[in-house]
């Protein structure tokens, strides 16, 4: 029983002694905890207080200028979308081409090699990033950014689903082609600035190729614009909603062909990948690039593939519309359209809990002797969780049209991505003069013919297709 | 062995032939002076009963005393290979007329012979090193170009694991230059 120190001085001394003893006795982690925990507590309290105080004004501010917020969110979302898309496409290309070559393909990193392209990304990040002697360093550094941004910005106008799009411009198609045309600038900058004959040839090739394939690309889309009567992507998609028979692919078969070929050339894909023809000009405009600059070109290429497929789907294959009429209407009234309410969360939690118990018990009792209780209930939890997730997903799929839209859109888009990869696995490369000759002698007249026929048909029938 | 070819050749080239026409297995061999190379090649290429149109090979040979340029020709008029040996080219200043006026393909073969033996083919418009670097100064396939590590009958012999008797080497080699001389004519 120690005597309580009498004076304040003694009290402080005792406290300091106690603190010093505690501190000296504590390990490093304890000391960290001793420092961090109070800080974290203070930060949390401050956050809560500020949230309570600032919540109303923040909501008011966001509500006041919604389009700005929407744009910001969309831009951030799209920039975040591109990198995983590129990873998925790279992995898909590796794997699909490998299988078509009777190889297995990447299968060491991650399950079935799924982490390969991610590791590739880290490798590219960790590489030295240099500029060759005699290069125009400013342009050399800017070029990848220009290419990447040009291809990313086109994603702004692509409607993934009803309500899920960056901006619904009424000149969306025009904006798309303008931005697509911007990407050639980046390639040209890269080819010129890297002070290498191979790069120069690659840059000039890409310039000639993209400039001459822009025209049939655009002209083949103009027919669709005539039919839909608008340039807004959402409008175009809406105007072909319904069953698969309402898609423009059946109204514009020639245009689809032209558009697909021109899009292949636009995305620099085989058989039109003259700009990085490795057997002729070593890597084309990217010969002198390394590190993340090269990575930007790489991403841009694959994002281009995704975008071209997406555009093809949007204007010819009905975008996010389902290929057949859905039996029940969207937005079931017993489910509030703004999202799953608290009630549903509770229901899901209870169902999950009960199902876990039932399944776990069943496995534990009847699954044989070798099931310990934790293992049995863990498995039960997994199965029940999977089932509940599937159920909730299905419910959302039925309930919310944007979930459906994203599903159908992505499905169609990846079908065309697969076709691009498939072509790359099969076809050899065309020659420069054949490429240009094909563009100017065949594709352009065909596109013009298609345009005239469409216009004539609309004039004769005199009924422009109106959106529903 | 194609006897008729021998008769045809003797009939055509009696003037230029040096020594008898040798025939062994499926090869017929004639020796000429280097000066006669254009006439002889032209004859065997154009004459209706010879028509040796395909130049199989052009090789330089350094016998230790003289240089030779050996042409191998093929014709559908004969089952034999025709071997034309331009013999007696001086080693210190080897010169030989080029065969590019008949076979353009002889250009690189002559370049190779020049690179390896230093034989200068007059009339070849692209006579430069083809395998060796352009500033290389010696001619590797000459017999006085020694590989000291494992060359038999060379001053360095016996230090590597392919060993040759000293006496035989001295007998075969010219004591002055150490050139291995051929016992072939």
């Amino acid at each position, binding site marked *: 029983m120690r005597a309580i120190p009498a004076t304040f001085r003694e009290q402080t001394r005792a406290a300091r002694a106690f603190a010093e003893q505690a501190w000296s006795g504590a390990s490093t982690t304890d000391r960290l905890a001793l420092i961090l925990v109070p800080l974290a507590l203070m930060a949390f309290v401050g956050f809560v207080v500020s949230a309570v105080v600032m919540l109303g004004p923040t909501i008011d501010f966001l509500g006041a200028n919604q389009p700005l917020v929407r744009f910001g969110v969309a831009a951030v979302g799209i920039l975040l979308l591109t990198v995983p898309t590129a990873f998925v496409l790279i992995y898909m290309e590796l794997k699909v081409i490998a299988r078509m070559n009777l190889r297995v393909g990447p299968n060491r990193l991650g399950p079935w090699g799924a982490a390969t392209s991610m590791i590739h990304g880290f490798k590219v990040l960790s590489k030295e990033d240099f500029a060759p*002697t005699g290069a125009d360093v400013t342009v050399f550094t800017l070029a990848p950014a220009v290419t990447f941004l040009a291809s990313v910005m086109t994603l702004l106008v692509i409607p993934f689903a009803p309500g899920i799009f960056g901006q619904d411009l009424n000149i969306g198609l025009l904006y798309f082609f303008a931005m697509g045309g911007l990407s050639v600038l980046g390639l040209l900058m890269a080819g010129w600035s890297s002070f290498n004959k191979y790069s120069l*040839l690659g840059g000039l090739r890409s310039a000639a190729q993209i400039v001459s394939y822009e025209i049939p690309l655009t002209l083949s889309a103009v027919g669709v614009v005539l039919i839909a009567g608008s340039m807004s992507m959402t409008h175009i998609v809406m105007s072909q909603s319904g069953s698969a028979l309402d898609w423009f692919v059946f109204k514009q078969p020639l245009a689809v062909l032209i558009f697909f070929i021109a899009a292949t050339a636009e995305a620099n894909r085989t058989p039109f990948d003259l700009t990085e023809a490795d057997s002729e000009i*070593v890597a084309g405009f990217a010969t002198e690039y390394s590190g993340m600059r090269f990575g930007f070109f790489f991403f841009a290429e694959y994002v281009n593939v995704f975008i071209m497929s997406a555009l093809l789907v949007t204007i010819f294959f009905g975008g996010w519309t389902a290929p057949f009429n859905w039996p029940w209407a969207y937005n079931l009234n017993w489910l509030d359209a703004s999202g799953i309410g608290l009630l549903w969360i509770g229901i899901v939690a209870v169902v999950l809990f009960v199902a876990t118990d039932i399944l776990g018990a069943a496995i534990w009792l009847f699954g044989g002797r070798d099931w310990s209780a934790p293992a049995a209930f863990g498995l039960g939890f997994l199965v029940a969780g999977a089932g509940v997730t599937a159920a909730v997903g299905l419910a959302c799929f039925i309930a919310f049209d944007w979930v459906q839209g994203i599903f159908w859109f992505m499905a169609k888009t990846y079908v065309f991505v697969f076709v691009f990869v498939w072509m790359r696995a099969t076809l050899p*490369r065309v020659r*420069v003069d*054949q490429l240009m000759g094909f563009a100017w002698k065949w594709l352009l007249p065909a596109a013009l013919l298609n345009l005239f026929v469409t216009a004539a048909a609309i004039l004769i029938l005199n009924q422009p297709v109106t959106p529903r | 062995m194609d006897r008729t070819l021998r008769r045809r050749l003797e009939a055509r080239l009696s003037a230029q032939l040096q020594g008898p026409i040798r025939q062994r297995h499926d090869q017929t061999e004639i020796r000429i002076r280097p000066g006669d190379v254009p006439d002889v090649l032209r004859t065997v290429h154009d004459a209706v009963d010879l028509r040796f149109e395909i130049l199989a*090979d052009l090789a330089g040979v350094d016998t230790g005393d003289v240089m030779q340029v050996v042409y*191998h020709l093929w014709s559908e008029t004969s089952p034999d*290979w025709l071997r034309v040996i331009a013999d007696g080219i001086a080693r210190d200043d080897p010169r030989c007329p080029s065969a590019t006026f008949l076979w353009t393909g002889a250009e690189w073969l002559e370049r190779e012979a020049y690179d390896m033996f230093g034989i200068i083919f007059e009339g070849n418009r692209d006579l430069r090193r083809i395998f060796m670097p352009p500033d290389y100064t010696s001619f590797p396939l000459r017999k006085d*170009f020694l590989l000291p590590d494992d060359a038999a009958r060379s001053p360095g012999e016996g230090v590597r694991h392919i060993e040759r008797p000293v006496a035989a080497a001295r007998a075969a080699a010219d004591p002055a230059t150490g050139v291995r001389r051929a016992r072939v004519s």
Partner: protein
Amino acid sequence: MPSRTARPNTGAGARPQGPPAPAQHRSEDDPRVMLERDINADMYEPIPPYPTQTERESEFYSSGDGEMFINIGPHHPATHGVLRLVLKLSGEQIVDVDPVLGYLHRGVEKICENSDYYHVIDQVDPLEYISSLFQEWAAVLAFEKLMDVEVPRRAEYIRVLSGELLRIASHTLYMGFLALDLGGLTPILYSFIERDEIMEMLASLTGARMLFNYFRIGGVNGDLNHEFMSRLGDWMSRAAKQTEANAGLLNENEIFVRRTRGVGVLDRATALRFGVTGGNLRAAGVPFDLRRAHPYSVYPELDFNIPTRDEGDSLARYLIRVDEVRESIRIIDQCLHNMPDGPVMAKLPRLLRPRPGRAWGACEGPRGMMGVYAVSDGSDQPFRFRIHDPSFMHLETVPTLLPGNLLADTMTIVASLDPVLGGIDK
């Protein structure tokens, strides 16, 4: 490259009075030049890779306006081996070409002159590394003529069998590489599957996978064994169908046909003047195949055709190979059917000392005539051992075929001529 300062002649022979060399330039591919010189347009002005000596060089390295020089190789995705083509371009159009060889030169002829007759065979192996058996074959043909050796018939049949197998492997690889240089990714892997099967087969026969040191003077090293025969049977059962399917990927492909038809036309007269042999000559309409034109083994007893085509373009060169694969499969069938019994080696002394003489042996390789000219002085080593490689002559036609075509056609033409740099550079 060694330093450019003139060194005394290490070979004791006096240097002949060659064409005079003017003042020496620094080559453009010398990195120090890049660092020294300030960066401006005259980086693009032509500088010969080494001092100009000859007429042809000075003509090549003087460029008109708007023409630029570009190096394909020595390290380039599309050059088979270490080949360097200095192209003179105006835009994408090729004005002139100057192939630079020797990056792979190993002096095999000198090595062979310094090793026994037995050692020569595995010295010549790595020359034509795609089809090494044929270089061995030419060497042993020459040596057998030199020593009057009689080869047992069974050995001859085994030689033909393995040779034709290797011919198929080489042609399959050729198709794949042609497609690869045209930008097609897939055919090369199908080709490698076939070729790998054949290589494993030959490994079980000869004991090595690529550089089989198999042929011997007066026979072959080792008789047919069960493993080889079973592998061969499995493969032969599906060979024809498989090769047809793989070729079907290219034969009718419009892009491939447009890329190759009429590109690099090598007509009959030019081919003869350039000493071109093999499939490239047959594609130009000359039925010159040593297996028929100068029969050297049991080929007279076998029944096969010599496919020829009249248009000498890259497509014809490709299709000739496709047909030859079929013929080779026929030959293998016949070999298996009338394979005689008996020894596979002739009786020979351990140390070979042929009497002085000269011999020329030539056989028909996948790329053309493989020749060997051997001179013996009565010792146990060849006094002169000359190797003739067809790829050398084929590559020589490139400066004639390329000008006027586009840059992309360089790969088409070079790949369709099918050179192997290991054989070219000796």
